[in-house]
């Protein structure tokens, strides 16, 4: 029989973290945890005989486990098996990320609609290829007023619109539904200051009610329940910071920045948007997780979108002032047993970055992963 070779499916990307790896299943939008040692072997022999893989796996585990791994990898279609002569016909996935947009996402706070109209904010964004808008309306806007505002922009080429609004007296399910029917591009509505927290979807629109005021919802740290695995986010995250890349924020007074709480680059009343899109403005776009201390050691780094503002250190890397809910050095989330903050796992310096304390980490991991299982 012909010798069979294996190959990793290009739509599956094995991403190593400090402690463990994740198999990103980009076309089935799912993921699995794997040991780093398995990923090393899979990469090392990728395209080679299945026997090599088997042998290498037996060397780190035993025959039964090796067989189980291979069965698992084949069953999940993480790898496939084919005769050697065809292996080289399978080419690599192009990892380039590109969008036909100078700005892709815009967050616009709205208090004064005449400012939006006079300075042609929406038209300018449309000309820049913007596809996603998030309007955050002040408490002066009931659903009827929002509807009137949106009606002016229906013919423009946006793909989706999100709405943040206040829960005002006349708001009810009936008029929300009518509003969604009239504005087919709306994909998400967040309603703040509501009596209760609830979610009430209508067709493809996600409608979320919050008791909180909307300023409270602006900090969103990495949260494993909100992670998405898809090819677009993965590719974007390889090179860019997916929260900041091609994003713009215009506040209620017309000040332009990358996102809420970021540095101001000008005001819509005196500057047009295209003219501020210079290298300084795009600085945060390049703060990929690979170029960010701690995140670069995290296996979630190509599915994680968080809105902390990266700061530049002197050696071309970025760092965050606030810690994350996840510690990649022990693979533990804050709400999990055994979690300790990253700072306790080594020495952290804004210039040198995080230097893992090997003994300390080994000790912690032994406690969490070995003793905990007993």
């Amino acid at each position, binding site marked *: 029989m012909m010798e069979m070779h294996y190959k990793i*499916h*290009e*739509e599956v990307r094995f991403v190593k973290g400090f402690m463990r790896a994740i198999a990103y299943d980009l*076309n*089935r939008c799912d993921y699995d945890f794997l040991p780093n040692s398995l990923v090393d072997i899979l990469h090392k022999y990728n395209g080679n005989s299945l026997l090599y893989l088997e042998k290498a796996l037996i060397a780190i585990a035993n025959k039964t486990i090796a067989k189980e791994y291979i069965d698992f990898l084949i069953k999940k*279609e993480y790898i*496939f098996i*084919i*005769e050697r*002569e*065809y292996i*080289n*016909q*399978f*080419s*690599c*996935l*192009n*990892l*380039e990320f*590109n969008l*036909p*947009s*100078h700005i892709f996402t815009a967050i616009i706070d709205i208090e004064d609609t005449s400012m939006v109209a006079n300075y042609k904010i929406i038209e300018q964004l449309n000309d820049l*290829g913007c596809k996603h808008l998030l309007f955050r309306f002040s408490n002066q806007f009931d659903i009827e007023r929002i509807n009137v505002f949106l009606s002016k922009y229906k013919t423009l*080429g946006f793909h989706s619109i999100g709405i943040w609004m206040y829960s005002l007296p006349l708001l009810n399910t009936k008029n929300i539904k009518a509003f969604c029917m009239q504005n087919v591009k709306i994909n998400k509505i967040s309603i703040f200051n509501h009596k209760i927290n609830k979610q009430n979807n209508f067709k493809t629109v996600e409608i979320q009610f919050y008791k909180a005021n909307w300023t409270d919802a602006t900090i969103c740290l990495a949260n494993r329940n909100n992670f998405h695995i898809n*090819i677009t986010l993965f*590719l974007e995250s390889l090179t860019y910071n997916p929260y900041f890349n091609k994003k713009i924020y215009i506040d209620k007074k017309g000040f332009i920045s990358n996102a809420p709480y970021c540095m101001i680059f000008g005001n819509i009343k005196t500057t047009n948007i295209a003219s501020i899109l210079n290298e300084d403005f795009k600085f945060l776009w390049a703060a990929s997780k690979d170029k960010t201390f701690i995140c670069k050691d995290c296996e979630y780094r190509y599915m994680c979108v968080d809105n902390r503002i990266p700061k530049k250190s002197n050696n071309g890397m970025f760092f965050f002032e606030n810690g994350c809910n996840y510690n990649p050095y022990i693979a533990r989330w804050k709400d999990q047993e055994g979690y300790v903050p990253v700072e306790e796992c080594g020495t952290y310096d804004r210039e040198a970055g995080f230097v893992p304390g090997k003994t300390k980490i080994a000790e912690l991991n032994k406690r969490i992963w070995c003793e905990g299982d007993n």
Partner: protein
Amino acid sequence: MILIVSSHDDFSTNEIIDWLLYYKHPFLRISQDDLIEIENIEIQNNDVEFFFQVKGKRFSNKNFPSVWYRRSWLSFAEFNIQCPKIKSVFNQSIHNQLLSEKNVIYNFVNNNLFRDSINTPFDCNINKLLVLQIAKKIGLVIPYTKIITRKKDLLALTKKYNKLITKTQTGGVFVGSSREKLNTLTLEVSEEMIAEMPDRFFPTLFQEQIEKKIELRVFFLENQFFASAIFSQYDKQTSVDFRNYNFKHPNRTPPYMLPHDIQEKLKQLMSALHLNSGSIDLILSSGGEYVFLEVNPIGQFKQVSKPCNYHLERLIAKRLIDKDKE
């Protein structure tokens, strides 16, 4: 300027237009809903120029060195020929004459406008059987194919081939209304199906079912190939026709490079069919042969472009821009 003829809701067209906007390149997009009013057609020495109005503006065919045909067709305003009110033989023959005149002009304008375009409205008319014949002549392997009208012939064929499939001789189309749907994708021929068939039936195409390692969907653009391997054989729902998409558990579709000799034969085939772009379906059989199935002139390149990240939308946009500058 670039001319794009496509239905107004075609998503792939929108994506290409996003790139044209990004590169700030002028274009005109029309569909059958935009009436074209021909002003005049002048036949010069070795050139033709005609002026027309569409979408409230005046153009000449010379404005459009770069043309992309995707979907839809050109609608001409003057050709709204009314049926005669009084039905006499004379009126009817005048009416027929007008229709013939119309066709001459329609064809002439189409021929000229789409002379160097990427795809043309005529591409859709290719005869699938002729394509198989030419493919075979060029040396591509095709499945054993027979068009049958008698049950006894079909039964004889089932003895010869383990498994048979049947498909339309046109393209796969969705026939039906919201209540009833007829799936015209490729079907495996079952014993029950044969049992229900009458002794004589409408000429139907049957092919041997090729046992496959993988299916290949290839987008072809001006002698370049962009292929994706479809691992459909693991999935019952898609193993006969991968267009029976399984949305919950999509097939793996990694990028694939066709061997050189297959590329050369496909180039010959596309050239013989006068196609500069299209989607080609092949199978890599379990015996290791590349088996040619069919070509769809106006194929869906998105299914190849997105999972393999080929950026075909940008490539087509750039190609159109280059043609405009040539």
